[in-house]
């Protein structure tokens, strides 16, 4: 094996083990900041020892053992450590300070529970949404701060600071490392699902910069969703979210053309949709429904996505069903954006004039004033109705509203386009 491959193999093992290592240590310490510091110490030791000695048979147990020993060493060496460090060191020292790697633990349910606790803690509503996203990607995705910064097009120190502050906030508030109790479970789970959904969406339609799609973020969100579905299998909305993400991800190969330009849903080459992901998505949707989650907001969105996924040609799309689903979604999750999508579905099912009537009601909506898809949709409907002058003005307006280079190009192109 070449040196480069050995090094890559070691880094991969560490990245794979990292979430479970941190989760296990967080359970032990009750503090994810401290857990990550200890994990980092263990990683440094691994990078020193593994190239010469080889990767141990159970790398996770090795890392955990080393991390715990480091905790004790630090405690013994220094007297002015923070309170949590001191408590931990004392506990570990009292236990005798000797551990043998526990080879069964890597497969045990405890670690699954710890991972679930880690997800809930990283997505704690106490934290700002960007902090939850950064912390989740760092602790559960194993992404480096540099990778997160690149994905979100912000300077690395910004992400690093966001993560440090988030860990400090959790520590200061003494947020317990636990799966929330029944009365808190629903809102806390909603926060977790939102974070995963936002990570996916950031990758799916970037709001800034010239990289229209960031497949790595989409892939990470889908993976997190799949992990969560295994950890919390009784939660219908988890399966609803997974269904939505799998079906959306199935279209990634068809969403851009050879030049990297976006291709709209109805223009996509559906033979390029990933059928495996579609069937996984449909299966996840069925699980959500079987668990009684049919009216969950993610399950509803997944049901809409499924209507598209089931149609091999755009003409086969059941638009009346989509309109009906948007009506339920508008009840469950009232929002002008849902209304806008409902208007598009209505126009497809019952003609552009019917859609335009609803869109025109939305133009007065303050929250949509700077939403580029409103003029974009309105322009589309006007063009279909032959009102070309008005349509062009709407596309020009859409172009000025979007931050994304490629989407702007698309809107600007349509503004200049002659109708046929």
């Amino acid at each position, binding site marked *: 094996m070449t040196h480069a491959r050995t090094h*890559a*193999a070691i*880094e*991969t*093992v560490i*990245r*794979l083990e990292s979430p479970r290592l941190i989760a296990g240590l967080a359970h032990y310490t009750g503090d994810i900041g401290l857990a990550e510091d200890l994990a980092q110490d263990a990683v440094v030791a691994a990078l020193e020892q593994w190239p010469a000695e080889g990767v141990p*048979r159970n790398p996770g147990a090795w890392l955990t053992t080393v991390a715990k020993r480091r905790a004790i060493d630090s405690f013994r060496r220094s007297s002015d450590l923070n309170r949590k460090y001191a408590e931990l060191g004392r506990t570990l020292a009292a236990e005798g300070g000797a551990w043998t790697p526990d080879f069964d633990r890597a*497969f045990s349910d405890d670690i*699954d529970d710890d991972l679930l606790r880690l997800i809930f803690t990283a997505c704690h509503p106490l934290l700002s949404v960007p902090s939850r996203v950064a912390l989740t990607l760092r602790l559960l995705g194993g992404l480096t701060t540099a990778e997160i910064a690149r994905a979100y097009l912000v300077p690395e120190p910004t992400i690093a600071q966001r993560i440090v502050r988030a860990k400090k906030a959790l520590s200061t508030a003494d947020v317990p490392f636990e799966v929330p109790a029944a009365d808190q479970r629903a809102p806390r789970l909603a926060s977790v699902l939102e974070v995963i959904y936002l990570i996916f969406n950031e990758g799916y339609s970037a709001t800034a910069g010239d990289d229209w799609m960031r497949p*790595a973020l989409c*892939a990470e969100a*889908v*993976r*997190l*969703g*799949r*992990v969560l579905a*295994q*950890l919390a299998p009784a939660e219908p909305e988890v399966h609803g979210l997974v269904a939505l993400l799998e079906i959306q991800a199935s279209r*990634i*190969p068809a969403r851009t053309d050879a030049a990297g330009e976006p291709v709209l849903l109805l223009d996509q080459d559906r*033979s*390029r*949709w*990933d*059928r*495996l992901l579609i069937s*996984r998505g449909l299966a996840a949707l069925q699980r959500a429904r079987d668990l009684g989650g049919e009216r969950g907001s993610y399950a509803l969105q997944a049901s809409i996505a499924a209507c598209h996924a089931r149609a091999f040609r755009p003409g086969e799309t059941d638009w009346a069903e989509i309109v009906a689903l948007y009506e339920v979604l508008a009840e469950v999750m009232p929002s002008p954006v849902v209304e806008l999508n409902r208007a598009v579905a209505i126009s497809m099912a019952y003609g552009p004039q019917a859609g335009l009537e609803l869109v025109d009601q939305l133009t007065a909506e303050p929250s949509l004033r700077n939403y580029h898809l409103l003029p974009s949709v309105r322009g589309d409907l006007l063009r279909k109705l032959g009102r070309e002058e008005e349509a062009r003005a709407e596309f020009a307006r859409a172009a000025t509203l979007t931050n994304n280079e490629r989407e702007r190009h698309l809107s600007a192109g349509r503004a200049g386009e002659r109708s046929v």
Partner: protein
Amino acid sequence: MKFFGYTMGDPNAPVEPPSPEMYERMGAFIEEATKAGVLLATGGFAPMSEAVKIKYTDGQFTVLDGPFAEAKELVGGWGLMETRDMSEAIEWTKRFLAIAGDGESTIRQVYGP
């Protein structure tokens, strides 16, 4: 990135028939890989002796029944993985082989449809 990993039960890389203990450990491994969001689908191959080959040459089909190898029962399996990169797919395959025992796996990146 998706990868298809397989052990074909190739006569050049024979795989021992699995013991009950191995079944149990393999079950735990499959659970772990699924929980990690990595394993999308997996299955086993019937012995090579039961395989059929279909050839198409100059407009003519030829269907060849096995066995194609010696009498030894050669089994195999496959898994479709989704990982961040090839390096992760290699690591998961190592973990698979550590349970399956001596043998050889091939991993091929799977492109979209």
